[in-house]
């Protein structure tokens, strides 16, 4: 037998990249299941399209760059990017949306910056922003939860709609978005934003059927499911508590303050926490080890910054949800945050650099 001589650290975590990524993907399963239950099987089709596009474009770029293709493909990072983007976009969006987005995420945002570990931005969120800015209509066409849909959803409807823009029975997206009373349905955040802009109060806006639960029908369960997955990740020590706690804490605090100041024009903190993509962002997106801050204090600042930005954009911005924009803006701030929160070197006193002149 041969003795392997390795340099320190000798005692290291056994978590390898591919295991880590696989566990994060697994932790998405409850959220995906909840989406399937409330919004139909579209998300599974989107996942299929996203994963195949991601693997294909990753393999293509790795081949061009002369890197080992199979080894890098097996680290599951492209898979995770694909999954995160697929759960973020509307399940009935046309097929080219997800294909374009995933290819952009892998080729431009990840590989052109140097591949895994070098990307400045979270690939899934950068691609989401690209899609949202370029195709606002398709990217906001969320169907209402199945219980509120006027037309009964057929099992094959996702396939028909994603590839032809019409359901199997021939209904267009606009018709599918209409409920039994002939009202066009939007996401809870979107509904609230439109109503507030029209001068209605929060209480009036919440007369809509979609607000039957905190955060809106379906959306609260999707968020709870992502929360459950996130807690499992915490328990598995895949992610640390700092970023999610800071993000949720800062979002809750901001929305609580606003709610206390003017309850008529601000959603409650619980509404903010359990609607839109809050939980997905807190546990799955902001915790991306590459584009997030790497120091302990830095992670608290980074998470709190995202929470603050989500609140500000949801409340004052033009878009109903703000997770992707908030994460990208915070990604930009990461080098600065890391620079000012460098941990004390072992053996040095705090603020020892101030005494340098004395020695």
């Amino acid at each position, binding site marked *: 037998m041969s003795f392997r001589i390795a340099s320190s650290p000798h005692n290291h975590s056994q978590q390898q990249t591919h295991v880590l990524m696989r566990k994060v993907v697994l932790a998405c399963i409850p959220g995906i299941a909840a989406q399937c239950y409330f919004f139909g099987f579209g998300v599974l089709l989107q996942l299929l399209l996203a994963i195949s596009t991601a693997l294909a474009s990753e393999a293509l770029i790795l081949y061009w760059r002369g890197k080992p293709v199979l080894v890098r493909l097996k680290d599951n990072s492209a898979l995770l990017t694909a999954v995160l983007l697929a759960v973020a976009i509307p399940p009935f969006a046309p097929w080219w949306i997800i294909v374009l987005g995933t290819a952009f995420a892998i080729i*431009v945002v990840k590989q052109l910056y140097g591949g895994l570990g070098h990307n400045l931005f979270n690939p899934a969120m950068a691609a989401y922003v*690209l899609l949202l*800015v*370029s*195709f*606002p*209509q*398709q990217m906001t066409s969320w169907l209402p939860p199945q219980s509120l849909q006027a037309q009964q959803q057929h099992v094959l409807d996702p396939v028909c709609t994603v590839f032809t823009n019409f359901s199997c029975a021939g209904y267009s997206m606009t018709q599918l978005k209409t409920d039994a009373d002939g009202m066009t349905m939007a996401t809870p955040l979107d509904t609230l934003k439109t109503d507030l802009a029209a001068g209605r109060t929060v209480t009036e806006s919440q007369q809509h059927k979609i607000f039957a639960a905190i955060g809106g029908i379906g959306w609260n369960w999707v968020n709870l499911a992502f929360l459950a997955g996130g807690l499992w990740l915490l328990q598995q020590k895949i992610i640390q508590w700092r970023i999610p706690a800071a993000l949720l804490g800062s979002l809750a605090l901001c929305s609580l303050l606003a709610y206390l100041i003017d309850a008529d024009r601000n959603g409650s903190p619980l509404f903010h926490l359990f609607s839109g993509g809050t939980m997905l962002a807190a546990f799955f997106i902001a915790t991306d080890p590459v584009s997030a801050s790497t120091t302990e204090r830095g992670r608290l600042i980074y998470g709190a910054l995202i929470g603050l930005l989500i609140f500000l954009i949801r409340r004052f911005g033009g878009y109903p949800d703000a997770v992707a924009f908030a994460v990208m803006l915070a990604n930009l701030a990461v080098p600065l945050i890391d620079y000012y929160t460098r941990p004390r070197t072992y053996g040095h006193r705090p603020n020892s650099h101030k005494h340098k002149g004395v020695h």
Partner: protein
Amino acid sequence: MNQYQEIARQGLWQNNPGLVQLLGLCPLLATSSTLTNALGLGLATVLVLMSTNFVVSLIRHQVPNEIRIPVFVMVIAAVVTAIEQLMHAYTYALYQSLGIFIPLIVTNCIVIGRAEAFASKNAILPATVDGLMMGLGFTAVLASLGAVREVLGQGTLFDGADALLGSWATVLRVELYQSDSHFLLAILPPGAFLVLGCLIAAKNAIDLRQKKKQQQVKTITRARVTHSAGAESAAGGN
């Protein structure tokens, strides 16, 4: 290679203001949303560069070294004002769509850069040719950026060309594909950055490939110089 060929090579490729010097990025990115806008601003820049290089070279012996920069800026500002008035008079639609970016040619670093680096040190004819070539190089980058962005964003080419070239130019408009959903990002500023990045990468790749080819050729010629007789006589001659 004579002087003018070298000037042309520098301006159009080797030292291209858009791809290598990365000067004047502000108008480059802001006005390249369509091919027509890009060509309009590019041609205006060519005119400005030629005229300023000509004037600066003409007065280069009279201008005291200490105040040359203010003098150059005055010359540039005068020329740009004249061009702006001309565009106001003859290409009003284009003037309106380019907006603030015509007067802003004054601040385009290429113009002051060429005046300082080339025109103030060279005779009139080379200076004017340099202005033309630098301007054409800039226009070429601007136009290719505009073409790519217009095709991606709207699926057309030469949309609104009549604003630049007169009413006959409406026939130039090419509709490559029809789509309900435009790719808005290509028209927005981030699209300009992404496409420019790709253009720069392409230029660098071409340069790299040429360099490799030249190196291969060189090693072959070196291998030939082995026999002593010819080499010695050459050395003695020196």
